[in-house]
Structure formats: C-alpha cells, structure tokens
C-alpha cells in the first residue's frame, strides 16, 4: 500500500503528468453541475462538489457507441463486409469517482463479466481503468450509500482512495493498479505507468494452485519433482505469487473471438427491410440499407 499527501496544486500538477500514461477523466464544472470529462488542454479539474450530475459510467460503458463498420463502395475489396470497429483500450484513470459510483461498476460487472458471459468491450475497458475514489466528507442529506453496501469512505471497487483534508489530499492505494498510478503520478519522478498486464485487477484473479500440503510432499522428492514438472510444467510447483497473470489481450481472446464469429455471419434483408443475420452463408450486405447513419454508426 502506498500513501501520498499532496497539496491541491501538487495534485492538479500530478494529474497533468499522468496524461502521458493514462487517459485521465476528472470532474469538471460545467454551468451548475460537475461532470467527468477527459483532462486535456483547457479542462480544469474541480474537486469542489458533493456529487457529479452523472456518474462516470459512460467512460466504461458509453450510452451509445459504434459497434461495426462497412463500406458500400463497390470498388473496395472489403465492400459490404461488416467489421468490428477498432477501439481504444489504452490505460485510463477516473480520478475523483465517489465510492458509491465505484461500487456501481461492480454491480454492472454481474451482468457483463461472469462465468457464462464476458462482454469483451466492457471487460477490456474495465481492466484498463484505474479508479481513484474521492471520499465524501460531507454526504448529501438524501444519500443512501450506507443502505446499499457502500459508504462515504468505502474502498469497495476502488484502486485508490483520496480524502480532502482542506488544503491537501491524502491518497491511499488499494490495489497494484492504484499503486502503479500513484508511483507514476509523483511530480518529481514522472514515468510511464507499468504495463497493466502486470497489475492485479480487481477482483483478484483466480489462480490455479495445488493444495499446499500435497505440493509440499511432492516437492520434497526428486521423483515427484521430475514427474510433475514433466506433466504440468515448472509453474505448477512455483509459489503462487511468482505466477504472473496472462496479459489482458490473451485472457480475453475467447470473448473477442465470439464477437468476430458474429461478424462473419451473412447479412440478408428481412421483410421489414432491416438486415438480419443468417449463420449459414458468407457475408454480404444488401445494396441499400435503410438508416445509413445508424447502420454505420
């Protein structure tokens, strides 16, 4: 765990420094309300709020986004071929998220990241995101976070938690992801954030490990060592802490593939003129597709 105490000016400078390694989303005052916006030239972070008007849900799960693309230009080789729209899953940080909003992501996870189904875009965005919480010193009279499993200083679902002490912020890391961000945010030691694949994601990934007693017995005998190393590889007998989780891209390859399988299906016209998917024929699109704007976007 890493703790840092920074004046508010130092923190603002540190956030600017983070931009080299992360897309940084911060609360920005717009008219009467605060909202999360990408920190770039001109956007001034403001932590002087009770609650933002909207939660930063859209950073992970946008209200609408382009899913597929195709071209109607017959001269192109890939005309009518529906392709997945390239997406940016680079590292990003939401700084100043309230603990209740952070826990809400874990509730969304129940639907989007479970043993039966992993939404590839949601999971990749979530994995690439570091959540820096902002504790509520003065919760609203109408807040109900304590009734739904969260709280003004709750650490659930967060990678780090910052607390306003008046003239300065104290920031405490809660996960390796949060620690990596804090290390790279140090104003004196600007450095790129480490590869996220080396960071422990929240919740902690399950590791395959043998029962400790069984492992101890077989590691004491040379025969046991040779046999199990041959069968399962050396990693089986190493202490669990030295087994690195696979990179994000490798872990999620199954989910991405299922999305691509969908893209390879044929699109034919339905009775209503809307394209429908048929799994039996190669992909082609009708010459004219109603609602071109929506079809491409």
């Amino acid at each position: 765990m890493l703790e840092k105490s920074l004046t508010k000016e130092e923190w603002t400078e540190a956030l600017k420094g983070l931009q080299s390694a992360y897309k940084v989303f911060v609360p920005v005052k717009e008219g009467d309300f605060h909202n999360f916006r990408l920190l770039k030239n001109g956007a001034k972070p403001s932590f002087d709020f009770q609650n933002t008007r909207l939660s930063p849900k859209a950073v992970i799960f946008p209200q609408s986004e382009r899913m597929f693309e195709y071209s109607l230009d017959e001269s192109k080789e890939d005309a009518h071929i529906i392709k997945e729209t390239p997406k940016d899953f680079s590292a990003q940080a939401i700084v100043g998220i309230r603990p209740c909003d952070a826990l809400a992501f874990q509730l969304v996870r129940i639907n989007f990241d479970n043993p039966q189904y992993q939404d590839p875009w949601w999971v990749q965005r979530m994995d690439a995101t570091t959540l820096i919480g902002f504790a509520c010193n003065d919760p609203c009279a109408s807040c109900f976070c304590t009734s739904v499993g969260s709280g003004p200083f709750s650490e659930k679902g967060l990678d780090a938690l910052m607390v306003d002490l008046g003239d300065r912020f104290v920031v405490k890391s809660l996960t390796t992801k949060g620690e990596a961000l804090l290390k790279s945010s140090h104003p004196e030691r600007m450095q790129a954030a480490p590869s996220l694949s080396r960071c422990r994601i929240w919740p902690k990934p399950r590791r395959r490990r043998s029962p400790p007693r069984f492992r101890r017995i077989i590691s004491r005998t040379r025969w046991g060592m040779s046999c199990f190393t041959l069968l399962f590889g050396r990693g089986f007998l190493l202490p669990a802490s030295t087994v690195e989780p696979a990179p994000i891209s490798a872990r999620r390859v199954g989910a991405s593939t299922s999305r691509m399988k969908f893209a390879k299906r044929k699109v034919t016209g339905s009775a209503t003129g809307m394209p429908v998917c048929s799994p039996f024929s190669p992909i082609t699109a009708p010459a004219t597709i109603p609602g071109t704007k929506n079809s491409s976007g």
Partner: protein
Amino acid sequence: MVEYTPKIREIARKLLEKGTVDVFIGYKKGTVAMMNEPVLIKDPAEVDLLHWDSHCGLNLCNYLTGRTDRIGLVANGCNSRNIVTHIIENQIKREQLYIVGIPCTGIIDHRAVKRAMGNREIREVTEEAESFTVIGNGFQETFQKKDFLRTNCAVCLHRNPVEYDEMVADPVPEQEGVNPFKDVEGVERKSADEKRQFFTQLISSCIRCYACRNACPLCYCPTCFVDESRPQWVGKSIDPVDTMTFHFLRAYHCAGRCTDCGACERVCPVGIPVRQFTKKLNKDAFELFGWEAGVRPDQRPPLDVYRADDYNGFIK
C-alpha cells in the same frame, strides 16, 4: 402563497366529504427542499397532506388525461390554461372537473437558489409573504422571492386562472410592461449558422431521459414518436442530430398548445433551457394567429381549424 394552504385543505375536505369529487389532485410537501410533489387524495382524512407554496412547479394537468371520474384540482394561471387545452382536445370533460383557482405570484427557480448558495447543501426553505428563508447546516439566509422567480414566471401574463369553480383568494394584479418574447427576439436576430450553433450548444448536454416530455401535459400520445421502433422516426442515440431532431419535433408538436408553464425546464436533470424551443412557436402562434393557448375555451386552436376564407392560398 403559503397562506393558501388552509383554504385549499378546507375546500378539498368539503368536496370529498360531500362526494362532489372522487379524487382531489394537489401538491404535498416534498421530502427534499423546494421539491413539492403531486398527490392524489381520495380520503377526506388525508387532506392535511395538501400544501401550496412557491415550489409547486410541476403541472397537475398531466394527471387528468383520459380520466373518467370526477376530479377536483388546484390550478394557477398556466395550469388552468392547460386544463382548457385538455378540454379543447377532448382529453377531459369540463363537467368532470372542480377547479380550485390559485392566484399565483410565481414559482421560485430552485436552481437559482442553489446557485446562490454555492456548494452549501440546502436542508429546508421556509416561505414568508414576499420573501423566503434558506436553511442549511450552519447557515440561514433570507431572499426576496421576486429576485428568484423562474424565467417563465417573471414574464407571465396570466397569473390568475382563466377557468375555475372557486378561488382560494382574490385575484392578484397581472404583470404589465413585460415582454415574454425578449429572449426569442434575440435568437431570431442570429444568422442561420449562429442559430444552429446556439441550438447545438443548448442541447449538448441532453441525455435523452425524456423527463421534459414526461412532465409536459401536452405529451399524452399513447406512444411517443421517440419510442416508436417500427418505423423508427428518430435515432435513439445522443448524437447531436438525433437529439436536436427530438427537441425540434417535440416543440413543433406543442405549437399553439404550450402555455409556457415551465415544467419541462424545471425537471431537466442537466439544466437545458427547453423553453427556448417552444417559445418561438408560442410567439408565432400569437403574431400570426393572435392565439394564446388555453385562454379561450370556446375557440378551436389555429392548427386544427379550416376556413374557406383563409388568407393562405395553399389551403384552398
């Protein structure tokens, strides 16, 4: 206006006990400061819930559409005009209604009050005759109501109800010398590009929650055009083109019907001045047809009238 409350309760009790009405629709004090809620009362023992002050900003006419029972309800100037519009559009019959008229001196803009208090959280607002006091954790401040009126109330020309069965107090003097369309004239002076920019900026924060539509008593279609999917008239995304199509189409559906009650603006969670869309059409209806919505119960609105002597050639 808080002094109207005992009289409203007395009338409601009388109506319910005598059986003149089956239900009485009014406001009750909300759990959050400055947020009074609509309430439907059927039991005379519950009339003490009824409340009236300068925070009754929602339009009760929403609760009349298609009802078949006998209804008593409170109505200030704009709400009563919406009742008349409902009667004209055959959504309710006049015989079903017992209208308790409220001479209104304006509703307070809760956002303006919050703005004045900065980040301090408001716990309670109490109202005196022409002033109100804002109370929070460790502070208490008093303001004059006239400085915090909603923009539609500040330029209102119909404070007293146009249709009622009983008034709770004597009519208040109507405002004189106000120009309700001053801001529209400002927009009219802009070039086409500036207007596009103005409206694009206006709706940039819209999240398509449809609170404006739901709060509007004119939006009573069984299926709204934005909810249709076959055919889909308008995209459901927050793309500026889709959002602008929604707002413009909704405004045109309200042409010659909007009473400028301000409910749409009050409920917008992101603070879009929605009335900027509808007010231009109110101005056109007034300038082209001399029509103010909901003021004349005995006349058909200009957009559903055919006249053989119409001065427009295309209609013949």
